[in-house]
């Protein structure tokens, strides 16, 4: 499988199973060492949408997110996930930091690849269920 880029890694981690990502982060804590916690909080991300009738971007509403921002040796680790699980998002930031500092890189990438494969499989099932509702209409 082709290695995921940074954006794909982050997107995968943001959707990863909370218990599994926490378990991975537990294995990284000692290796990462001391970190500065820049942010560990819940907050809102405003979500705009592009309107097709007027060409205007407008706000649909806000999404509850958990955010973790950490730093070690000048390297940033960041996590942002839906919901209010501060442990899971801190785990995401730790994995991001570990990858940026080449700590347990193989384990982290293997985790991301497995989660991405699981997410793709989940999407495939969803889309095959949706496809079952395809309708072909005829006008008489």
């Amino acid at each position, binding site marked *: 499988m082709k290695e995921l880029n940074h954006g794909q890694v982050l997107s995968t981690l943001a959707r990863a199973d909370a218990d599994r990502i926490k378990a991975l982060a537990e294995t990284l804590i000692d290796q990462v060492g001391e970190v500065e916690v820049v942010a560990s909080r819940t907050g809102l991300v405003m979500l705009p*949408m592009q*309107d*097709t009738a007027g*060409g205007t971007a407008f706000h649909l509403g806000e999404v509850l997110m958990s955010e973790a921002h950490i730093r070690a040796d000048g390297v940033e680790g*960041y996590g942002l996930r839906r919901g209010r699980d501060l442990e899971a998002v801190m785990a995401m930031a730790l994995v991001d930091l570990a990858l940026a500092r080449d700590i347990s890189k193989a384990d982290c990438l293997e985790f991301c690849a497995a989660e991405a494969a699981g997410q793709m499989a989940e999407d495939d099932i969803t889309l095959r269920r949706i496809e079952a509702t395809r309708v072909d209409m005829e006008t008489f």
Partner: protein
Amino acid sequence: MAYVATRGGERAIEQSERLFRSDMGRIDQARVAELRHALPYLVDRVMGEASLYDEDLAALALAQTGGELYEVVLLLRAWRTTQPRLSVAAPIQQKDLFTHRRISAAFKDIPGGQVLGPTLDYSHRILATDVLTGTPFVPNNVVPSARAAPAHQPSVSAWQAENELLDLPPVEPVQGNDIPDLTREPLLFPSKRAHTLQSLARAETGGVLALGYSAMRGYGQAHPTVNELRLAEAEVMVKHPRGTSFSAGRVKVSQAEVVSKKGEKLELGFAATLGWNEVKCIAAATLDLNTKGAAKGTATEEEFFLYHTEGVESSGFCIHFKLPHYVTFQSSLDAMRDAKAKKAAKCMEPAQ
């Protein structure tokens, strides 16, 4: 202006709240999880009207208020104010939506085809009364197709523009914090389009339907045909501190485009909301379609429908009437008595 101070109500207020909550009993995580699981469309509706997306919070608000929807939305809007804004995501593009349902009433052969997705549109409306006598209702399983539906579908209006059926407007290059935001600035008229669409996105479903329906029945200028209706999931695209763009997760959104003939081209109305709520989107898009040229004080005039479909304000104004108005009402009574006395005095005057 005068006020009446009331004493002795503290205990009654405390007991009245207890009385309200006593029928609902204990609220725990299991109840919230059950509500979230069992009532996804109600959860979606309140997330849209609250303008706050989180299924757990919405289910908790439903549990805490016994499903009193105006209280649910008020509770969520109030909670929202306790949270910082972390960022503004990149605007959702129609073509990037992970699409679950996409239908058109205007064209049967839209590019990408039509998928009904989850719907009760064509089902028999039969109440499963056997459940009440001990026979559970177990839905039949979906039989998945061998191949997957395309996750992303093109916009129908883009295809129509290619075929010169309508003119698509140029996209305004406004992003992030520059997008006008009703939660930080007042709604003024004539309304900015971003404010109009944001207001409709968070509007109360019943209010939007009532006014949209009046336009559909002929009290508007244009009759809508659903050009494209979508229920989908949108990626919330944010930035890492190093600048990498990534999805922080998906949220459910609904979107409707309606069209009407205008001269040689089609004219579009648009609406979208958080969560899956297609009735609201079709009605709101109909109001958007009918805005141009609407007479002052009619249901399709922007000021009229935006002010009257804001659920927290309208329900709040409505329920304020049940609060003590003793002084103003006494003033009305005084005026009535005075008029009556003057009339009686006039009758008593001797004839000239």
